[in-house]
């Protein structure tokens, strides 16, 4: 595997038209809710009206008697995974997934599925849901972490024990280096602060949706939008008992996932409804259901303590991170525990995470799961530390950067650390160098902040098939739903390696029956992993082309080279033949040995972590407490930008989601434990006019272990914004905010307290 250097490339690094672009802008793209079938009926979910209740009985007879109703499903129909025995599928524990898809013993949050109905119309299904009689014994509920970990808190699951007692702390995670006591003893300056963040939703535009058809011969077809059709197949199989070989999961175009669609809610329910009714069943969530009952990411309550020498050498760092899991265990502890201190060379680290259940919807993955809230705490403390030590905050980070070959507290030894390069990119950027007018107008204050971030990135299983068509074009099939432009990147790689025009390559996403197992589109892994398997597949195809040319020329295949889209004799000794282009060889495929094509399936290795450093300018309207982002520059090492537009898009998208997290997004609950803002009006994600053009500074330091030098891109950019913006707001107002979001009422409250104190 040779690393291709940028100057040689025609297609890698080119801003080609994305294969899915025309369909998406013309409305032709088929999303999950676009599937319809003859005889199809509609499924609807009955959801718990209580935040916490024992389900004493469910009587579905009246619903079943309603004309038009074809099937009813309750937890009894779903495969049970007893709580005392863990069954894992990837990082998901099926004990919790089965209870999340349909409440079993208890309703654990307002909106928890209790039963589902399929009927000839959506309205009939909804009406039938209302006819289901459920007897509940309502229990006291608990929403916030601090309440859930109190000794007298209502306990969600009596089988969960912490320190020997029933507890809402479902688990812990520890990362350690050196001796933390000794570390702090060596420090001249120690800063310790406590931070709070609220749960935030991934906010994808497309609600979860699926259509499932269960045939009389026991085979089921699923059309759904997800971040992994193989996950859909496996999880549906586990929850319904239908073997994987009998399930074909067909991925639809996906309207955003950001991690949330790495688990499922509807597919097993729709399959069972289809099985009972004998009809294809379609289910589409409403926005209210999406917000109320699909995973946001965890809210958090964290304490970070960092000690440094006077010269700025960090000697010790300690983090304690409590994360909301929602109603069932499984918050992303790995994010804050592992990532918070990873970019730094700190000899003594103790990082501990607590997984806390409460009566909220179960969290789901969200872009760099857990890492942003950890970095929020760490990077704000670093800002204070820099101020106290009188060192430029970027300089402090630079001095303490981890180095290649070092061992991180989370266990890995770094192959390649490119953190310093991202810091330097910001230090040398015109944005960071240009002065900021801090008091532009009366009542308006401006400030600048910086922060950095780390994400693991990942490799894992991927499959690809590269086939030549009879007319000499190329079809590439991969097994990964394309959430962020992966088809465009793969088209560039294939065109480059085969030396053909980009528009002769078509890239499609196979279903579970047509391509080999491919793990989730997640963990910033897809471009890395699929470019690797596609490269190896193309290399095999080129091998076949050389053999065919050799056969035609009657020379040794070793004497053939493939260059600029054609086979040529390797040198004068090989013979004098005019080149045979890919097209010519495809036309002669049958007479020279049959169809040309090859596939590769791998557990890909060699993903290097992502590092990012950001600088942001904010402007605060002091009297109204409104914080606006004026300018944002994000530097990141991406290894190699196969398609720069989608690399920039990933960086910009991550930053925008971070801006929402920092300034306006939060889950709000009422006293009954009901989500109070389950819509896009009151759950305030930034709109276009809220954010400036975000400048992505794309650093390309090739990953030596990848054929094109690719590193993961999608997650690192959401890690720094929370802290960068908090640090900028401090620079503007002289006040630190230890809780997010920095919404207008919170900003004015803090400023009024400041005035009163002065």
């Amino acid at each position, binding site marked *: 595997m040779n690393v291709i250097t940028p100057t040689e490339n025609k297609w890698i690094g080119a801003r080609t038209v994305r294969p899915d672009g025309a369909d998406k802008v013309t409305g032709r793209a088929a999303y999950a809710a676009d599937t319809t079938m003859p005889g199809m009926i509609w499924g609807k979910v009955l959801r718990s009206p209580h935040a916490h209740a024992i389900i004493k009985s469910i009587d579905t007879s009246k619903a079943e008697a309603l004309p038009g109703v074809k099937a009813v499903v309750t937890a009894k129909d779903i495969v049970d995974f007893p709580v005392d025995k863990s069954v894992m599928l990837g990082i998901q524990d099926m004990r919790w997934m089965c209870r999340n898809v349909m409440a079993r013993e208890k309703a654990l949050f307002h909106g928890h599925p209790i039963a589902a109905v399929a009927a000839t*119309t959506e*309205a009939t299904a909804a009406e039938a849901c209302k006819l289901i009689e459920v007897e509940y014994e309502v229990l006291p509920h608990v929403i916030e972490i601090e309440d859930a970990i109190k000794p007298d808190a209502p306990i969600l699951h009596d089988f969960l024990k912490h320190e020997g007692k029933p507890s809402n702390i479902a688990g812990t995670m520890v990362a350690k280096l050196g001796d933390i006591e000794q570390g702090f003893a060596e420090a001249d300056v120690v800063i310790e602060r406590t931070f709070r963040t609220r749960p935030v939703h991934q906010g994808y535009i497309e609600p979860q949706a699926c259509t499932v058809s269960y045939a009389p011969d026991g085979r089921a077809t699923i059309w759904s939008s997800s971040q992994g059709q193989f996950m859909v197949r496996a999880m549906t199989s586990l929850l319904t008992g239908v073997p994987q070989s009998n399930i074909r999961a067909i991925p639809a175009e996906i309207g955003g996932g950001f991690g949330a669609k790495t688990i499922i809610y509807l597919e097993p329910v729709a399959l069972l409804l289809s099985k009972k009714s004998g009809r294809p069943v379609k289910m589409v969530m409403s926005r209210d259901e999406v917000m109320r009952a699909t995973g946001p990411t965890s809210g958090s309550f964290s304490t970070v303590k960092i000690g440094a020498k006077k010269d700025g050498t960090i000697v010790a760092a300690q983090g304690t991170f409590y994360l909301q899991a929602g109603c069932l265990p499984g918050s992303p502890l790995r994010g804050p525990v592992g990532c918070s201190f990873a970019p730094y060379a700190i000899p003594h680290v103790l990082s501990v995470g607590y997984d806390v259940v409460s009566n909220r919807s179960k969290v789901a993955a969200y872009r760099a799961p857990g890492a942003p809230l950890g970095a929020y705490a760490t990077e704000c403390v670093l800002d204070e530390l820099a101020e106290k030590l009188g060192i430029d905050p970027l300089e402090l980070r630079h001095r303490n950067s981890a180095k290649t070959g070092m061992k991180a507290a989370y266990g890995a030894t770094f192959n390649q650390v490119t953190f310093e390069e991202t810091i330097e990119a910001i230090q040398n950027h015109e944005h960071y160098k240009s002065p900021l007018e801090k008091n532009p107008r009366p009542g308006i204050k401006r400030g600048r902040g910086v922060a950095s971030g780390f994400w693991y990135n990942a490799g894992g299983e991927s499959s690809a098939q590269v086939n030549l068509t009879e007319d000499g074009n190329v079809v590439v099939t991969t097994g990964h739903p394309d959430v962020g432009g992966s088809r465009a990147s793969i088209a560039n790689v294939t065109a480059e390696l085969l030396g053909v025009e980009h528009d002769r390559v078509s890239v499609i996403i196979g279903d579970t029956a047509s391509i080999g197992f491919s793990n989730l589109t997640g963990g910033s892994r897809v471009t890395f992993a699929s470019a690797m398997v596609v490269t190896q597949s193309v290399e095999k195809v080129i091998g076949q082309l050389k053999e065919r040319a050799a056969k035609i020329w009657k020379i040794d295949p070793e004497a053939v080279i493939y260059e600029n889209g054609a086979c040529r004799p390797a040198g004068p000794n090989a013979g004098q033949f005019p080149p045979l282009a890919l097209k010519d060889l495809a036309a002669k495929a049958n007479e020279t040995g049959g169809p040309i094509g090859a596939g590769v399936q791998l557990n890909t290795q060699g993903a290097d972590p992502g590092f990012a450093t950001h600088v942001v300018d904010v402007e605060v309207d002091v*009297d*109204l*407490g*409104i914080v*606006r982002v004026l300018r944002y520059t994000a530097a990141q090492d991406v290894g190699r930008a196969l398609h720069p537009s989608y690399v920039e898009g990933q960086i910009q998208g991550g930053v925008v989601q971070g801006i929402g997290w920092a300034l*306006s997004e939060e889950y*709000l609950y009422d006293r009954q434990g009901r989500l*109070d*803002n389950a819509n896009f*009006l*009151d759950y*305030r994600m*930034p*709109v*276009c*006019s*809220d954010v400036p053009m975000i400048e992505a500074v794309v650093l390309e330091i090739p990953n030596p272990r990848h054929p094109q030098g690719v590193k993961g891109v999608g997650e690192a950019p959401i890690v720094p914004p929370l802290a960068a913006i908090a640090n900028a707001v401090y620079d503007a107002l002289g006040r630190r905010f230890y809780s997010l979001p920095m*919404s*207008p*009422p919170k900003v*004015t*409250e803090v400023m*009024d307290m400041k005035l009163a104190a002065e």
Partner: protein
Amino acid sequence: MTEIRYLAPRTLEDAVSAFAAAQGAASGTARILAGGTDLLVQMRAGVVQPGTIIDIKKIEEVTAITEQPDGSFVIGAAVSGATLHDHPRFGKVWPGVLEAVNLIGSKQVQGRASPGGNLCNASPAGDSVPAMIAAGAVVTVQGPNGRRTLPVEKVPAGPGRTTLTPGEILVSFTLPARPAGSGDAYLRMIPRTEMDIAVVGCGVNLTMAGGKVTAARVGLGAVAPVPLLVEDAAKALIGSTLDEAALEAAAAACRAACNPINDKRGTIAYRTKVAGVLLKRTAAIAAERAGRK
């Protein structure tokens, strides 16, 4: 499933009699449809399920904009924000009312949304209402018992409720003639820059002569169950040069008038504070438009 009857009469008389008849009938509620940007959304959410919908957009009087010889303006209740925006004169005379109407929703929503719908929807946070109150608008209403007029601030009765009686339809808004040296403005606080709902809205209408305020009206939205006319704020401004003391007194009057709720959109403390802040900012813009003469 319930069926919905859709009527689109061409005269007010037909509309009123159909409305009154449908409201009286056992078949359920009837609703007037102007732009539908509230009504259709509420129907889809299952909040209202009208048996009859009466579209008033085919009625001339309800969709007309007229500048009267005396300089007053009559705006049909169902005129869309976009139509009002394109009127050659209205925005010059009432820039504050126009900006309030044009703040409603997005471009697409503007093509439909009307000031009449905004008022009759009776949200405490409706954007055009405080500006209309500040403008001193009077509405004309027609019902089974004929026509009547009332000040715009008398229409809302509480969240989602109006003082209109059964069968009554809002016909138009009349905005009085402007003396020289007049200007109005509307500002709202929303956390985002677009697609949001007012946390506080403030309309100010001033007439100035010789650097002093000779007439003033102040409307506040989203700080009480109904949009408010804040007479004490107007009093504090009248006779002043809009000096800091007068503005602070008016801001204090606005804060005192607030009777907000703590909800997901804003806290009591925040809304109260912001009412005062917006009064000062809106008054400054209105004064600028009045020419500060």
